[in-house]
């Protein structure tokens, strides 16, 4: 593909059971584009963790995914509470998720670490009280 493709998703913050639909949809599109399965898995994991975080912490948000010849860029932005201590949030096992969320199998403090681990670049821009934008890239 010579021209980059862009996909946009609105993440609903109310319905935890639907969290993951955007990532599933994106994964299917990447499959249709014939991308390498390892690349697809990385994008699916990173985007899913981000999507779940938006639902748990930020009442939803927006995800834009751009696919070029060389990389896949995911931009996840929300107008949630922001992350007061990014360094702490990046530690495996640190979580501020509610008990209800933990009982569903999340909130293990693996979200942000997984996103970092499965992407080639990750940048977090966050302001407490304003929101968070996370940009991740996976090289093709």
């Amino acid at each position, binding site marked *: 593909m010579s021209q980059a493709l862009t996909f946009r998703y609105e993440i609903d913050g109310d319905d935890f059971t639907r969290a*993951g639909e955007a*990532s599933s949809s994106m994964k299917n599109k990447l499959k249709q584009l014939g991308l390498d399965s390892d690349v697809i898995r990385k994008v699916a994991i990173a985007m899913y963790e981000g999507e779940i975080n938006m639902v748990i912490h930020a009442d939803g948000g927006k995800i834009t995914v751009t696919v070029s010849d060389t990389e896949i860029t995911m931009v996840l932005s929300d107008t949630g509470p922001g992350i007061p201590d990014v360094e702490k949030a990046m530690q495996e096992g640190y979580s501020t998720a509610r008990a209800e969320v933990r009982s569903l199998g*999340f909130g293990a403090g693996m979200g942000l670490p997984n996103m970092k681990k499965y992407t080639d670049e990750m940048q977090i821009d966050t302001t407490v009280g304003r929101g968070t934008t996370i940009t991740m890239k996976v090289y093709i």
Partner: protein
Amino acid sequence: MRLKTILKLPGFRALVKGDPDREISRIFCCDLLSIAMSKAPADGVWVTVMGNRNTLAVASLTDTACIVLAEGMSLDDGTLEKAGSEGIAVLSTDLPVFDAALKIYQAGAP
């Protein structure tokens, strides 16, 4: 081993059959979805007690072939229907996680 070997195991109820001829890679046990998300093997059999819609989302994103719900857990009808449309098998058993995984392993899973 193919999926159909597991579908026929005594003590396991097939709620969704998936593709019986699908080749299985490994057995994987985990209840924390974030860990499963990063570790569940493609084409694997995932044994868990976590039966909710997010379980299916994780299975789908990791290309899991079969979800085995231990301790008699189940999924709601809508989620089972979705598993069917995504080609992911779902089994339920009253066995605990270890015993369920062991039975599958003894049946010949790699």
